[in-house]
């Protein structure tokens, strides 16, 4: 299974755009890149998933370069409620959670 590396923590302010980059140098051909959000004592929540190029939904964008060895989750105009841990995962079905990124959004 591909291993991921992402920053341990990030700080931002309300209204700013936040970009969290994840490295996954050993990603396999059939692996997808998926990002989850987790609040304390709650189950992880799916944010976005992609295979290559750019994917956008109503809450985030995911940028994946051609070599697929990294990906960037972009959260536009964050709010206080976006304070959470964000996990980058690669795989086909089984999810292996690594160390997520603790995003703290301040007023």
């Amino acid at each position: 299974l591909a291993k991921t590396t992402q920053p341990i923590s990030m700080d931002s302010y309300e209204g700013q755009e936040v970009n969290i980059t994840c490295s996954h140098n050993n990603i396999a051909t059939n692996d997808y890149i998926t990002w989850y959000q987790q609040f304390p004592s709650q189950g992880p929540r799916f944010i976005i998933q992609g295979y290559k190029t750019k994917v956008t939904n109503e809450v985030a964008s995911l940028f994946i370069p051609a070599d697929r060895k990294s990906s960037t989750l972009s959260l536009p105009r964050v709010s206080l409620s976006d304070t959470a841990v964000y996990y980058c995962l690669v795989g086909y079905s089984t999810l292996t959670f690594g160390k997520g990124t603790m995003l703290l959004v301040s007023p």
Partner: protein
Amino acid sequence: AAGVIQSPRHLIKEKRETATLKCYPIPRHDTVYWYQQGPGQDPQFLISFYEKMQSDKGSIPDRFSAQQFSDYHSELNMSSLELGDSALYFCASSGRTAYNSSYEQYFGPGTRLTVT
């Protein structure tokens, strides 16, 4: 929309006791996953089932077993409980999408198990 249901939400057991956690996936989802998340830790994959057959196995202790039933609900059975088993146990479910074979997993609220 219907979500993943887990029961019980909280469970307190003593060492060496047994516990059974239940998971009811989203309707029409055919795959169930179990995760364990200790205090301050990241979720760790335990085991998964697809169409009632074990599909993948992670770091599940031999003291634990699980199965998926004909109605697709799943149970995680935990025996000889240890203090270190105290954790949040999440169940997730997924179903094959129409466009690809990747699976978006929907997580339940979790069962908080406390072993004393």
